[in-house]
């Protein structure tokens, strides 16, 4: 078989790569770098309360004192002095789609966001660079008492005390260098509160678009699902490709109260100049359930390990993820879970595909503390190598501190089996179709967990078409 026949075509990113020129008349851009002056200016721009201004400055000091972890992908080419921490449109956030500035509206329409809102979402937040440009929630959802707003409004409005109580308490700025940076320069993001017993039947979505070259996006998402409530939240991300590095250091904090359920789905398709150093964490209380569905396709470099703390007895988590590392990408992804409560359970299932020199690393940790009697965990990670110039590594870790735990782990790394290709060819498929079908089947456990529209988007992203010889 020739190399040409074996090749898997790269993802078609054309719709994501359209660059919308940002001129100085319509956009405000903070000077590059991360200094005390810049942090103060961001704080002024956002009319922060005093506690937040102080918090930002403390975080900046912390950022400057922390080192990069020695274990992850190389970030030497990310020059922080060339990153602008804050870029915003001079237009305010709109509650009506038609009021959004034309150029920004066009960008989101190309990505299908308003269409998805009309057809399948209970509410949408659209962030363009550092600020939300559009936020809307359907009346029937807000009538149930569900709050879905931008973080800035929550910080200074009716929910300010709640924000103060929860903001960066789950992901403290001391967690790592880029959590500290996030605390210093965060901007945008969403605040969601689902009251006790309320079940939101259709998902809410935030879409993050980083359009400006050499910019950072630092949105903060804070979701509180109160006792017995139920929510599915979807997060999408994209950016056009530039020749300079962009940075995404968002932070997601999720509080899942007693007997509540939260599903958090992400389709990440940042451009291949993006350093995606994102932090996501959930605190799950008694009888509650946290579900993560994660697809990582874009970025030049990713550090992404959603973490779940199973604090309450009988709490549960499930993580289903896929990572596709292509040419020039170093995607270091996985999940972390801490079992604290009794009778807690976790299930981690991941798929990873590496091709064209891409580096895909699955990294995880499972910690079962001494108090977590009767904890159960099962970890399964499968990696598929599509050529011999790529890398697929699995680096899981388990720390078990009680005998009263049931721990299962399995990992597999391999290639597309010749037998499977032969079998499908004996049923009339061409070799290319057979290989494409096997890879689609490999990704299927993740795509079936997504709503139909997003599963289609994911399949489009994978685009595992085989080129004919």
């Amino acid at each position: 078989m020739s190399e040409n026949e074996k090749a898997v075509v790269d993802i078609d990113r054309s719709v994501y790569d359209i660059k919308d020129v940002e001129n100085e008349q319509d956009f405000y851009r903070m000077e590059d770098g991360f200094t005390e002056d810049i942090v103060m200016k961001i704080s002024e721009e956002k009319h922060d309360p005093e506690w937040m201004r102080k918090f930002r400055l403390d975080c900046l000091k912390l950022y400057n004192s922390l080192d990069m972890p020695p274990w992850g992908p190389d970030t030497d080419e990310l020059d922080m002095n060339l990153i602008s921490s804050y870029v915003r449109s001079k237009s305010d956030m709109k509650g009506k789609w038609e009021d959004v500035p034309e150029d920004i509206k066009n960008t989101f329409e190309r990505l299908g966001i308003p269409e998805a809102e009309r057809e399948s979402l209970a509410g949408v937040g659209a962030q363009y660079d550092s600020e939300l440009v559009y936020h809307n929630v359907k009346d029937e959802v807000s009538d149930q008492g569900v709050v879905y707003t931008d973080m800035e409004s929550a910080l200074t409005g009716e929910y300010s005390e709640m924000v103060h109580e929860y903001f960066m308490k789950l992901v403290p700025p001391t967690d790592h260098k880029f959590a500290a940076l996030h605390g210093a320069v965060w901007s945008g993001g969403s605040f969601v509160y689902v009251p006790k017993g309320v079940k939101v039947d259709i998902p809410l979505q935030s879409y993050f678009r980083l359009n400006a070259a050499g910019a950072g996006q630092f949105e903060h998402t804070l979701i509180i699902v109160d006792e017995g409530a139920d929510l599915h939240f979807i997060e999408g991300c994209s950016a056009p490709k530039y020749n300079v590095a962009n940075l995404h250091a968002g932070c997601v904090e999720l509080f899942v109260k007693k007997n509540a359920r939260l599903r958090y789905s992400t389709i990440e398709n940042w451009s291949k100049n993006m350093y995606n150093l994102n932090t996501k964490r959930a605190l799950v209380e008694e009888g509650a359930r946290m579900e993560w569905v994660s697809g990582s396709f874009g970025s030049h470099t990713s550090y992404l390990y959603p973490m779940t703390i199973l604090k309450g007895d009988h709490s549960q988590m499930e993580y289903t993820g896929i990572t596709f590392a292509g040419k020039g990408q170093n995607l270091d992804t996985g999940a972390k879970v801490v079992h604290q409560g009794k009778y807690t359970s976790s299930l981690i299932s991941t798929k990873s595909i590496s091709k064209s020199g891409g580096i895909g690393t699955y990294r995880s940790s499972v910690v079962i503390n001494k108090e977590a009697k009767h904890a159960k965990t099962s970890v399964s990670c499968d990696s598929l190598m599509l050529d011999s110039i790529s890398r697929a590594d699995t680096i899981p870790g388990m720390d078990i501190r009680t005998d009263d735990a049931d721990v299962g782990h399995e990992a597999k790394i391999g290639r597309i089996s010749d037998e499977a290709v032969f079998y499908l060819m004996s049923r009339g498929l061409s070799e290319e179709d057979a290989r494409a079908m096997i890879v689609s089947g490999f990704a299927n456990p993740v795509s079936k967990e997504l709503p139909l529209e997003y599963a289609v988007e994911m399949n489009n992203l994978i685009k595992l078409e085989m080129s004919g010889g």
Partner: protein
Amino acid sequence: MDIKMNVNHLPALTYRFLKANDSEIDLKDLYIEDTKTPEPENIPSSVTVKSDLSEDDVKEIFLKVNEKIESKKADLPGPNGDTAPLNDGQIVRTGMGAAVDNLMKEMNVPVTVYTVSEGYKTEEPVVVKYSLKNGSCVLGSQVIHAKKNSEITVIMEYDSEENAKGFLGIQTRLLAEEGAKINLIKVQMLSEDVMHFDDVGGICDDNADIETINMQLGAKDTWGGDRITLLGDKSIYNNHTGYLCRHKQTYDMNYVADQIGKKTESNMIFRGVLLDEAVKTFRGTLDFKAGSAGSVGDEQEDTLLLSPDVINRTMPVILCQEEDVDGRHGASIGQLGDDVLFYMESRGIDEEEAKRLMIRARMESIARMIPDEAMIVRIQQYIRNIL
């Protein structure tokens, strides 16, 4: 003297909070009184023994295979958090790493080399026994060299006087030339006041085979590492490790199979029991290098936790730079299953006795692979005594 060194580096670093990226040995006021390898009880005629050799002599033994390793190096990126550069300069990469080489050099530890002649297969094992006296501190270094199409079995037994305090540090390096086979068996039954490390590194050329059996039953704190480089095509590494840790014993291990040649095979099995306040850290890595097409690797870990105060860390790593490989890892960690206990109780065996039975069964499933009946009996007796 004091020994302070970091060993057992995970081949690819991970989260620092797991505290498993490496392990620190910090021992104070040791007086190393003996660095000579004890003479074996019997030496088969096909085996020659040379003592008092230097590291330069060892370099010469491994010269050809090291040139072959260099020639096969691919210019491709290593894993994220690659620790390979930390151990550059080792004549043979070992599980515990360059720090042990440095210690041996610093202490001028002479190397004893066992060489089995080309084409010969030793019928009887070479048995090397370290018996530690109370208060003694011992270092030892050996090379086992199996020439083309030869086979050798070496049993290394470590024991001590009852309640002896002391220190025993051993490094064993292996070279299996084309078609050769080395069986290395290590049985550690030291007193619970002895500090111990056991470092192994080996290279397998074409169609060669290294088989290791480790029984870790005693000592206070134990560090162990095996790193086998499957350099040649169709070379094989099989390891079976059994360990029993109780009281406040710690066992920190690092096993690595570097698969370089085509159609290589590695198979690592670990069966252990943790009791009381024992702490175990297991690092096991299958590393499929570029060019290792057709290779397979499997590591299986089965740990029985029998106390609420034990700590078990498991880091099962697979690194892969080659498409045409099949790498697998499985781990099962937990208590005795209810079904096992129910079965035992239905046969009139209470829970405590059932646990003792299961511990013995696990340990003996590894011990029975040792080709020395007397040794198996000694292991069975040792386990009975401590249970």
